[in-house]
């Protein structure tokens, strides 16, 4: 069993739900990213999702697009990511899950990528890889004992649930809406009825992501899911408060509030 799944067992035994915040690697700057990472590490995160910037993020809305482009403009790449985490890994207790589009990983070569990634990252999310296309990727992930996360979306048909579960050694990422990442004021009520169907066919942890933007939503969905993922709303907060002197403190308060 990988580290992600172990942690879910632990949470389940305590009757707790996972809180999974997201940051874009290298945003707003590499230095600020490091500081934000430490904030999340000390603010009750169960896992931290790190988004690796890509030039063409087709599953992302404007907020994550901006953060990715900013980081890319500052020269972020995989070499920098690995050397960064080599340096800071021992300062962080929270398991890390990398979210990257497939091309940078494919281009690096799967072996090369996994060799570098496995001591530093506990999980991987590839938003443009379906289990059907992921045979080689899944084999390597297993060899290197990194947990994998695949998606179920509102359009996913029941006949694929078990395929997705088998590919997801970490957890299943349930996408709340048909759409790209970005905060939503309201989330569709059909989520819970669809989740029921997912639960009937699977027994792995299922976490909800895309669109969660406030505490009411967070609280509501923590009741039903094994965890929640919050991304765009955090990046938005960073963009809005970055110029302020106590922006890290504000960020921490915001994260604690979201998760309270």
């Amino acid at each position: 069993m990988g580290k992600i799944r172990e942690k879910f067992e632990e949470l389940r035994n305590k009757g707790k739900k996972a809180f999974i915040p997201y940051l874009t690697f290298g945003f707003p700057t590499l230095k600020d990213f490091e500081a934000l990472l430490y904030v999340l590490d000390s603010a009750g995160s169960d896992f931290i999702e790190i988004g690796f910037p890509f030039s063409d993020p087709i599953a992302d809305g404007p907020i994550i697009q901006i953060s990715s482009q900013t980081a890319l403009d500052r020269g972020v790449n995989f070499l920098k990511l690995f050397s960064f985490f080599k340096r800071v890994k021992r300062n962080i207790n929270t398991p890390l899950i990398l979210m990257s589009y497939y091309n940078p990983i494919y281009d690096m070569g799967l072996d090369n990528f996994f060799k570098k990634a496995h001591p530093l990252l506990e999980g991987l999310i590839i938003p443009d890889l379906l289990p059907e296309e992921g045979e080689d990727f899944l084999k390597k992930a297993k060899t290197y004992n990194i947990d994998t996360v695949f998606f179920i979306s509102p359009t996913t048909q029941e006949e694929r649930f078990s395929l997705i579960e088998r590919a997801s050694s970490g957890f299943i990422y349930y996408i709340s809406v048909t759409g790209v990442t970005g905060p939503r004021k309201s989330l569709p009520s059909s989520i819970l009825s669809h989740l029921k169907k997912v639960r009937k066919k699977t027994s792995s942890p299922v976490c909800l992501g895309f669109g969660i933007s406030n505490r009411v939503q967070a609280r509501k969905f923590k009741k039903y899911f094994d965890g929640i993922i919050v991304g765009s709303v955090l990046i938005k907060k960073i963009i809005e408060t970055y110029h302020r002197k106590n922006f890290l403190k504000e960020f921490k308060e915001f994260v604690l509030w979201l998760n309270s």
Partner: protein
Amino acid sequence: MSKKGYFGEFGGRFIPETLEYPLRELQEAYFKYSQQKDFKDELNFYLREYAGRPTPLYFAKNLSKKLGLRIYLKREDLLHTGAHKINNALGQALLAVRMRKERIIAETGAGQHGVATATVASLFGKKCDIYMGKVDIERQKMNVFRMQLLGAQVLKVEGGSQTLKDACNEALRDWVTNVRNTYYLLGSVVGPHPYPLMVRNFQAVIGREAKQQILKREKKLPDYLLACVGGGSNSLGLFHPFFKDREVRFIGVEARGKGFLSQHACSLIKGRVGILHGSKSYVLQDRFGQIEQAHSVAAGLDYPGVGPEHAFYKKIKRAEYVAVSDKEALLGFKMLSETEGIIPALEPAHALFYLRKLAKLAKKNSIVIVCLSGRGDKDLEIVQKVSS
């Protein structure tokens, strides 16, 4: 083509989970309807009565004499809306109607595919939104106006390179959001399966006609087929029906833009295998796997990727790929205008220029079919600007 949507090792479906079902639905609809007689009849009707098929295979006498080749032009420029894009737009629109989608979206670079899509949307009474990069909106203004006249909304894309690649990103994001009521009418042989296969099949009418026409005219197959390659649809449309005729050589012309040391759009010649817009093929990318910006004076070739079937043709050496620069394409543009009285679009002007090089390499009086994929009206302003 293997079952999973691959051409050899290229193609596939590298897309967000939300698009898995709509793509499967599309694939099933395509395989079902495209086999049915009423679909084929209806498509043939519109291709003939509305778009103006078959297009002539014109023997370019003056140019042939000048270059010492036997040059035939497949006149896709004479089609309604002015380019080959209408072949595919009509085919997919008939699918959209059968799938009961209320809204059609598309990406466009040169605006030709956008115009073709806006046209079929108007014809079949569908709501239509076209994504187009800011740079392309500025350089292909007339096509923007045409789309608007046809009742489509042109949505400006300001991310990234503000060209075709980013228009594609935005169209995919729209589709992920509005999958249930929206049909994504992709304009070239790129994207996730089944698009590369489907678009190629809708465009293969070019090659099927050309084959009949040349056999009637010359009593034999051509020595060369020549076409420009952006995403690769007019070229594959011409090439595919000749695939098994091994003696016919295929030449795809990519855009060398400002040159290999500067910016270009030669994904097949200079790219590496990677994943862009849902399929595995050759991609222009930096050494860390980020997609690079392409450049071509021809907006329709200004794209850092290429259809997976071309990657396969390259791998098995069925086609040869060459590069023609912005400057050379302008010479090709003038050459055809002055010798044959036909003003080509800047995209096929790349292929036309290559005739001059081919004339030096090929046996005298070799038979060459060039796909004249579109007419030059949309490019007059650019050519005027560059030449003055």
